[in-house]
């Protein structure tokens, strides 16, 4: 048996350790080296969610309802996935507007209305007080179990002064006073408290896991063993089905929903998640580490409760205490002591954070608005008043919690009280969630929704709990007030299909959401509401600068004086100096404050006394009028415009990048073309030199040897003439190609019959064919084949192909066929020879400039190497294509195709021509101008 004094000493040592950690955390924060600024401490501090209720109550709940304890942790897990989207927005809003409590947040969204803040505070107070008393009850119960387990007479604490819960409450009050109200500051952050809470989260997790391992593996042969034992008992086997949960799936869903909203909107969770958040980025890790913590702390719940049920089959032991009674039963008092410390951690952590959060709300949103109305408080230093109010409210809250526990707590199981608070906190979800995404949600809507939701919650859940405790007659529950059956609290309007919790949540949420949305739809928002709504909804778009609201007629000294009254002269001086440095102005020489400075002062003040009160105070020194609706809209529009511009700027720069890339590509192509041009010139020069050299050398022979025979002379002169012909042909072709490539050719466009074209080409080539004794055959359809194009150029193409064919045919044995055919949509001209053919490798290159077929039966190249290139360009200009089909040894077939012209086509072309005229010269001229002469 554990000695009374031992438990007390251990508890005090533990609490002393907490004080030390908190003290150290505060010292480090003062030195600017925060120990809590990392996602792990943040995650652990969020675990303040797991209270004594989790610690003892989960086991108790599992023992009676099976999986019924789990939705309380599954809900936050589901919600955590949305933190990055929803909670990050809430945090950003709270930081921009310096909001330091959930009441402040809701009030600020709805036009900074003190009435809204007051309502939220009262709901929070009424809703959370039972929860705080629950923690005291847990500590008290666990202490008694630990102390009196083996003593026969289980003494019940009747005397006030011998009740541990009172001392625990007082100790918590001292801690909260020391670390929650050390000073008034604009950020309302308490690093020491957060550090202590994080430490407590580690202790309670460790204690639970140790107890779980000990019970499952030391007392039993492992969790599977426990489960096997349980499954053989019909009573315990039921716990493995969901049907063990009263209310079934509806209740399951309600619990999930409630815990989803509780993780964000219980005042203590809001305080830890939003107000104490150091860096939004921490959410990234917390979003999955915190659910992992929840999973870990729930692993052994089922084994422990099964162990309790197996060890105490007769009942008589409260399932809520299994965590302590099972180790005690096994005689392991040290384990039980450690479990007790874990429970103490869970209880104190929750109570401290909740008390501090509530005291801020009570001070800023209930007491200050009243005090500020009193004339005597308009002057003088109010900082000390603020602190006094907060300290008084901390003590008040904890004592009230204790009183509640003494009066009512004994009759209620832990879980039921906790769920009462969850349902109260859920009332904050609609005004916040709808408020930060829907601009039109109005102040009146929020007030109506909150009041109705709270009223229904109280009527269907809180008042019945009084009835159960015997404060009011139980007949109220069964028959309704004044015997009105329709108003029975658990069966409102006769709705009887749900368990009381689901019933209450359904009605209160229906009223809350319904009135918020319904009233907003018919309400007309005033300027202030619209401004705040826009700033909240678009917080990621509007920066801090948009929170200015006053036209500047306040003086700097007035503002500074006002801040000094609440924050102290030193802090006010510091804040103004920091502002001056940031905005590059010397505030000591300024008299008039501009609207930005007024906005800044209001935000600083809001951090200390709440947004609603800060507004009242600023209004008392800023003599200027509130900005008109038009002006507010102008400010918002301006910002939207700036954002619009910056979006456009981004787009422009993207376009610019794209253009740069295109330019780079074009430059590369140009360089390539330049290289090709150089190559072209050097090739041309080389080609020109060959005939020139031979002309020159033969001329020299003729000059130097006057005695040459007439025959020889004749031969040399003929060579000279031929070479000069070749030279001029080459020059003509080069000029031709250059013209085509530079697009300076004057193309004519007319209806051309390809039969005529071929006829003319064959006519002009006839002499050469006859000279070489090469057969030339023609095959063509009877009807004319018309295309649109330049007649002379097309003749040139056919001539090129024919002369090409001649060149490669064996004189005497050669045969060349020209055939014309019209295919659907296009005309096809084919020039085939029976020459040596072209190697497949060369078929591609043959159309390139100066590409000459070599290594055939003549060492000297026979063409200029430009004929095919020119032909290809001409055909391409007409929208057709040219290619070669050949197999070595089997001759070559050059084929080109041109688009055919029908009657409709002619019309189209005429229009095109007209368009070309109108468009002016684009390198081409319409065909009725001078026809280009043949070179």
């Amino acid at each position, binding site marked *: 048996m554990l000695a009374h004094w031992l438990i007390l000493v251990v508890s005090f040592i533990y609490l002393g350790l907490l004080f030390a950690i908190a003290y150290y955390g505060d010292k480090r924060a003062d030195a600017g080296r925060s120990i809590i600024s990392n996602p792990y401490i943040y995650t652990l501090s969020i675990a303040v969610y797991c209270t004594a209720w989790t610690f003892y109550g989960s086991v108790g709940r599992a023992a009676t309802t099976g999986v019924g304890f789990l939705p309380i942790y599954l809900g936050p*897990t*589901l919600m955590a996935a949305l933190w990055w989207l929803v909670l990050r927005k809430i945090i950003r809003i709270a930081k921009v507007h310096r909001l330091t409590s959930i009441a402040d947040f809701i009030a600020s969204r709805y036009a900074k209305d003190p009435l809204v803040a007051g309502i939220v505070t009262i709901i929070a107070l009424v809703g959370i007080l039972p929860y705080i008393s629950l923690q005291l009850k847990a500590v008290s119960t666990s202490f008694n179990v630990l102390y009196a387990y083996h003593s026969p007479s289980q003494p019940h604490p009747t005397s006030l002064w011998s009740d541990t819960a009172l001392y625990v409450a007082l100790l918590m009050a001292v801690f909260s006073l020391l670390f929650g109200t050390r000073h008034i500051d604009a950020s309302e952050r308490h690093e020491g408290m957060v550090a202590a809470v994080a430490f407590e989260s580690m202790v309670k997790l460790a204690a639970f896991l140790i107890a779980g391992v000990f019970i499952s593996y030391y007392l039993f042969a492992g969790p599977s063993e426990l489960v096997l034992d349980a499954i053989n008992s019909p009573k315990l086997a039921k716990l493995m089905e969901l049907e063990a949960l009263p209310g079934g799936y509806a209740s399951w869903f309600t619990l999930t929903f409630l815990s989803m909203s509780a993780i964000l909107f219980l005042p203590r969770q809001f305080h830890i998640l939003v107000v104490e958040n150091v860096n*939004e980025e921490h959410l990234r890790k917390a979003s999955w580490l915190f659910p992992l913590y929840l999973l870990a702390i729930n692993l052994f719940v089922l084994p422990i409760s099964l162990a309790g049920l197996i060890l105490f089959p007769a009942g008589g032991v409260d399932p809520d205490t299994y965590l302590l009674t099972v180790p005690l039963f096994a005689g392991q008092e040290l384990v039980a002591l450690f479990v007790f410390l874990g429970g103490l951690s869970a209880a104190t952590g929750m109570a401290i954070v909740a008390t501090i959060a509530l005291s801020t709300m009570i001070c800023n949103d209930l007491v200050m608005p009243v005090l500020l109305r009193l004339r005597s408080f308009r002057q003088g230093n109010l900082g000390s008043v603020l602190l006094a109010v907060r300290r008084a409210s901390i003590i008040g809250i904890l004592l009230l919690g204790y009183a509640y526990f003494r009066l009512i707590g004994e009759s209620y199981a832990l879980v039921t009280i906790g769920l009462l608070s969850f349902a109260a906190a859920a009332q904050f979800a609609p005004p916040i969630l709808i408020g930060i995404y829907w601009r039109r949600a109005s102040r009146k809507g929020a007030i109506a929704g909150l009041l109705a939701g709270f009223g229904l919650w109280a009527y269907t859940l809180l008042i019945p709990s009084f009835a159960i405790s015997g404060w009011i007659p139980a007949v109220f529950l069964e028959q309704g007030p004044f015997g009105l059956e329709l108003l029975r609290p658990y069966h409102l309007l006769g709705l009887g299909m749900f368990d009381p919790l689901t019933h209450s949540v359904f009605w209160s949420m229906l009223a809350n959401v319904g009135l918020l949305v319904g009233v907003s739809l018919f309400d007309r928002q005033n300027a202030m509401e619209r401004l705040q709504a826009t700033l909240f909804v678009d917080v990621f778009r509007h920066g801090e600068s948009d929170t200015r609201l006053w036209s500047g007629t306040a003086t700097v000294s007035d503002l500074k004086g006002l801040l000094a009254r609440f924050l102290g002269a030193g802090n006010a001086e510091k804040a103004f100096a920091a502002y001056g440095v940031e905005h590059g102005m010397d505030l000591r020489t300024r008299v008039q404050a501009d609207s930005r400075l007024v906005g800044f002062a209001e935000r600083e003040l809001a951090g200390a006394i709440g947004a609603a009160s800060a507004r009242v105070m600023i209004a008392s020194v800023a003599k200027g009028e509130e900005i008109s609706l038009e002006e507010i809209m102008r400010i918002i529009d301006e910002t939207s415009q700036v954002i619009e511009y910056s979006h456009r700027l981004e787009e422009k720069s993207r376009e610019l990048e794209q253009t740069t890339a295109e330019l780079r590509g074009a430059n590369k192509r140009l360089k390539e073309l330049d290289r090709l041009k150089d190559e072209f010139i050097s090739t041309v020069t080389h080609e020109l030199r060959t005939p020139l050299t031979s002309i020159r050398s033969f001329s020299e022979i003729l000059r130097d040897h006057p005695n040459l025979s007439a025959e020889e002379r004749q031969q040399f002169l003929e060579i000279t003439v031929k070479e000069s012909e070749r030279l001029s042909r080459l020059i003509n072709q080069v000029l031709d190609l250059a013209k085509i490539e530079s697009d300076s050719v004057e193309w004519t466009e007319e209806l051309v019959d390809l039969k005529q074209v071929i006829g003319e080409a064959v006519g002009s080539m006839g002499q050469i064919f006859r000279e070489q004794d090469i057969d030339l055959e023609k095959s063509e359809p009877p009807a004319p084949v018309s295309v649109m194009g330049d007649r002379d150029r097309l003749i040139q193409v056919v001539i090129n192909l024919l002369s090409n064919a001649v060149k490669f045919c064996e004189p005497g044995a050669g045969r060349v066929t020209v055939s014309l055919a019209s295919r659907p949509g296009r005309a096809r001209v084919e020039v085939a020879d029976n020459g040596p053919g072209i190697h497949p490798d060369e078929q591609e290159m043959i159309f390139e400039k100066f590409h000459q077929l070599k290594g055939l039966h003549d060492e000297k190249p026979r063409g200029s190497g430009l004929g095919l290139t020119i032909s290809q360009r001409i055909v391409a200009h007409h929208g057709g294509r040219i290619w070669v089909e050949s197999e070595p040894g089997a001759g070559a077939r050059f084929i080109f195709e041109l688009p055919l012209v029908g009657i409709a086509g002619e019309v189209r072309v005429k229009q095109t021509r007209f368009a070309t005229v109108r468009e002016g010269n684009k390198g081409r001229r319409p065909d009725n101008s001078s026809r280009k002469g043949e070179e």
Partner: protein
Amino acid sequence: MPEAKRRNERLIVLPLVGIIALNYPLLSLFSRVKLHFGVPVLYLYLFAVWLAFIFCVAVTLEKSTPPPEPREAEPKKPRSG
């Protein structure tokens, strides 16, 4: 910022999937007195979904680099009024 947008979409879909998986009627499929690996099937299912969900959230949030300007979460502005 299509990457951030895709991540946000996943973050919205995940809880929806979770709510469906952890409620009636899917849940009722596992509500029976039966053991798997020495664990009641209902518990096994709940904890498995739980762990898988945490894993998905972790992967979604941790693999994306912090956005330089967190404005992308907002829809395009319609003006109030």
